[in-house]
């Protein structure tokens, strides 16, 4: 996405608590801790903050950017420019300067060669960080890392971040590791004091304390999803490493021992098992779900491609399981460390033959937690795979989000029959019989000792009792019942969120992690004189609210982060009566959506359509 931004001086006079700062470093240099300290200190000041890591698919030596946005108004989406850069990477120094507006700020390590023709309309602050590291007698192996910490002090001083907030962030990060805390604190203080004595504030950006963000936390979506799963009672997670889903399972591994010991015996109640590939990850999750465990796997696009046959098996055998798709950019290996919403069309109909799936689409870190536990209830209730579609931006970046709320509903294990339950059916139970008339059958699970409980599960055509069948009527009835079951689920799934503007006749539909960009774009459109209502879809299949939204608006733009407008495609197919009202706006370049793009795209389309 190309965003030609024209910044006027007036727009940028005295920016308090409203700027975007990018730290430009080399990956593997250990800058993550320094960046964490910075944004956590800002958060601790009560300023809404988000942190995005724009990183390469590489372990060490390539450029990486960490973008911190602070916004008193609470906008946490990406902006396509920087106000401030912290230049630590010689290779990208020159180019990084081009993203700054007039009057932008450059903190740069003074051992970097400042480009001869560097822009003269910027404010430059050299940072003698190597000198600090020498003075502090940092061991050789920690020097590069400590150089990063040094900029925290200098940047903090110039922007006006109080030392107490930096120290709070340090304490949070290092916990009881006193030695590490002290040596990091030492370097930061050196920078902080040096800046106070040697730099003169020449730029317009600063921060000020706001009332504390007591009801908010700062974390990433993968961590939230992992915690959600553990609160959802996950018992089995088989997985295979893949960016950007890996950190979700690693978070489960980290939290599991503390959270999931049996309250009675102190023993383990859940397993996380790394297996040989994604086929095995899906297969093992199906085996566990079939046998009555709450089961999941987490993956990304290429992994899902491998899991596809298994997903069809789970769908047709009506086996509950949860699959997290933390989306990256495809096709093929694509951009493994960048973000997109490009798997939706594939996932909605993942598998061959007549198939469709329940999809939950969290739009915030908090929803990653919520859908993390809810997905298991839905999977067990409807006896089907449930996908949770996050993406790299939501999953791996740091977001301010509301505190996690304890699940308001008890665990729903769905219809499972144990030994004594079978008596109720007096021999009339069959695994796929629609006894309750709502298309959801009862199931038994392995280990049930009632001789009537065992049945034969197969991916081949089967009758109500699981017996092999090629009977045409049986096939048709079976596949129609499963369809009914999924259609009935839509009102039980997380409903859409409506954000209205007075008098709007134009609508916007979006999903997932683009939420902050759409909200900000909606506000910008309002300022530009165009009221639009915004409906965020949080689950598929779509429910009646979406139909009503289309009914009540003249035109509805569907905005998404993929090439072809995949959500749009699903909507025109499922709500085809309204297809003339639907207009697709979609684009993908690997980066998160921005409000400015939302505004420009809608204004441009409105000129054509309005």
């Amino acid at each position: 996405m190309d965003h030609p931004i024209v910044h006027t001086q007036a727009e940028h006079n005295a920016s308090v608590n409203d700027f975007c700062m990018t730290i430009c470093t080399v990956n593997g240099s250990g800058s993550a801790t320094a960046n964490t300290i910075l944004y956590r200190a800002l958060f601790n000041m009560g300023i809404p903050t988000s942190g995005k890591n724009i990183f390469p698919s590489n372990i060490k030596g390539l450029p990486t950017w960490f973008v911190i946005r602070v916004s008193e108004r609470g906008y946490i989406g990406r902006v396509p420019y920087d106000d401030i850069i912290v230049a630590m990477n010689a290779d990208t120094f020159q180019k990084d300067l081009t993203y700054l507006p007039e009057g932008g700020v450059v903190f740069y390590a003074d051992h970097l060669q400042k480009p001869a023709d560097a822009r003269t309309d910027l404010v430059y602050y050299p940072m003698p960080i190597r000198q600090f590291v020498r003075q502090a007698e940092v061991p050789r192996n920690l020097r590069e890392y400590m150089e990063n910490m040094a900029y925290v002090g200098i940047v903090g001083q110039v922007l006006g971040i109080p030392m107490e907030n930096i120290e709070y962030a340090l304490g949070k990060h290092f916990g009881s590791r006193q030695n590490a805390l002290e040596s990091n604190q030492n370097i930061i203080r050196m920078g902080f004091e040096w800046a106070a004595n040697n730099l003169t504030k020449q730029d317009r950006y600063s921060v000020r304390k706001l009332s504390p963000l007591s009801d908010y936390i700062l974390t990433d979506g993968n961590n939230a999803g992992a915690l959600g799963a553990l609160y959802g009672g996950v018992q089995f997670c088989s997985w295979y490493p893949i960016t950007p889903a890996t950190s979700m399972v690693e978070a489960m591994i980290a939290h599991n021992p503390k959270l999931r010991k049996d309250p009675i015996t102190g023993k383990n109640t859940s397993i996380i098992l790394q297996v040989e590939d994604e086929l095995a990850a899906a297969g093992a999750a199906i085996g566990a779900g079939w046998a009555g465990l709450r089961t999941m796997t987490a993956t990304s696009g290429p992994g899902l491609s491998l899991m596809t046959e298994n997903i069809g098996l789970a769908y047709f055998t009506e086996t509950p399981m949860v699959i997290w798709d933390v989306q990256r950019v495809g096709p093929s290996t694509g951009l493994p460390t960048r973000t997109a919403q490009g798997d939706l069309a594939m996932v909605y109909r993942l598998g061959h033959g007549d198939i469709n799936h329940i999809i939950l689409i969290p739009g915030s870190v908090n929803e990653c937690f919520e859908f993390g536990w809810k997905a298991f209830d839905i999977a067990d209730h409807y006896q089907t795979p449930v996908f949770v579609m996050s993406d790299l931006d939501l999953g791996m970046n740091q977001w301010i989000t509301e505190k996690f709320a304890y699940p308001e509903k008890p665990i729903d294990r769905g219809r499972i029959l144990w030994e004594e339950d079978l008596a109720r059916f007096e021999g009339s139970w069959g695994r796929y019989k629609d006894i309750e008339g709502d298309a959801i059958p009862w199931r038994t699970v392995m280990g049930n000792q009632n001789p009537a409980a065992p049945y034969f599960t197969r991916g081949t055509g089967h009758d109500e009792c699981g017996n092999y069948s090629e009977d045409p009527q049986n096939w048709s009835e079976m596949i129609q019942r499963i369809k009914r079951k999924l259609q009935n689920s839509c009102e039980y799934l997380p409903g859409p969120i409506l954000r209205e503007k007075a008098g709007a006749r134009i609508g916007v539909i979006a999903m997932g992690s683009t939420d902050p960009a759409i909200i900000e774009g909606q506000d910008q459109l309002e300022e530009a004189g165009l009221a639009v209502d915004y409906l965020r879809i949080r689950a598929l299949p779509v429910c009646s609210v979406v139909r009503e939204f289309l009914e009540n608006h003249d035109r509805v733009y569907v905005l998404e982060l993929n090439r072809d407008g995949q959500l749009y495609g699903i909507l025109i197919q499922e709500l085809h009566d309204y297809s003339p009202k639907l207009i697709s706006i979609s684009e993908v370049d690997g980066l998160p959506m921005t409000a400015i793009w939302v505004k420009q795209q809608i204004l441009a389309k409105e000129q054509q359509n309005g």
Partner: protein
Amino acid sequence: MDNAQTAKTERNFVGLSSIDYRGKPSTLCPGCGHNTVSNQIQQAVFELGLMPEMVAKFSGIGCSSKSLNYFLQRSFGFNGLHGRMPTLVTGACFADRRIKAIGISGDGDSASIGLGHFKHIIRRNVPMVYIIENNGVYGLTKGQFSATSDLGLELKHQGKNFLPPLDLCMEALISGAKFVARTFSGDIKQMKELLKAAIMHNGIAVIDVISPCVTFNNRDEALQSYTWGRENEAPIQDITYVPRAQAIHIKDFQEGETREVRLHDSSSIILKKIDRDYDPTDKHAALDLLTGSYKNHYFATGLIYIENAPTNIYDEFDFVEEPLNRLTPDRLRPDAAALERINLMYH
């Protein structure tokens, strides 16, 4: 009372008759080696006195996988995807660790499309009986070469096989399996005793059953045919499985001619020497045997390798005692106080 009726009325020590261990009628070709395996599995489980509900059956895709339905109708069964049987077991087994898992696969499943899963479930040492019904041919797709087809095998629509076969016992051994056996659908006594020992083994037990395909690969000279098997089978021992409760009368076996291998549950396998002293606890000897038997065109069957398996994958996790799938929801969801601490951690 004729013999068949005696069999029907005989009860094992859980009070069931062999009828309780039967499956649906087989739809495989008459004479298919796989039917023998089905029969011997149900007989072995019956004789061991296991409740059928305490066994679970798993399979992939192919003729062998279809056979899952033809034994142990009172056991849970899951006929999944081609080659992916081990993945299902890997998940399901944790739900109730008392259940004995029996996996049936073919040479297509285990030597081709699922070779990776075959080796990795062995690495994981998931306690199960892993059976390959190996006929050296794709039956359900009507006669293509498999990865265990012999070099030079000629099939009607395929011509001559120019690729050498994989030996799944060899693959199992080098993947670290602690119980590796080969048997033959023409040798039911040996098969049944091996099955009993495999079911009671405390880890993964791999049995490669040479199980002829009477329709597509039963020409006399074919490696996996009845004729070739009968003419070239060289059992390496005479095997008897002795349950834990039963005292062993070693005098029944000639001294110096037998080995006793103890299983984890204190039951025993008595191995009687046939023509040479084979030590099934020596992995090098096992590899030599397999290499030599292919090279010298004889067909070694029996317990090829066994190693005491004091632990399996379950021992890597400190699980609650009861089956995980019976844990009530209150034992699966952490409390609100823990969530408060988490919120504080990220504040």
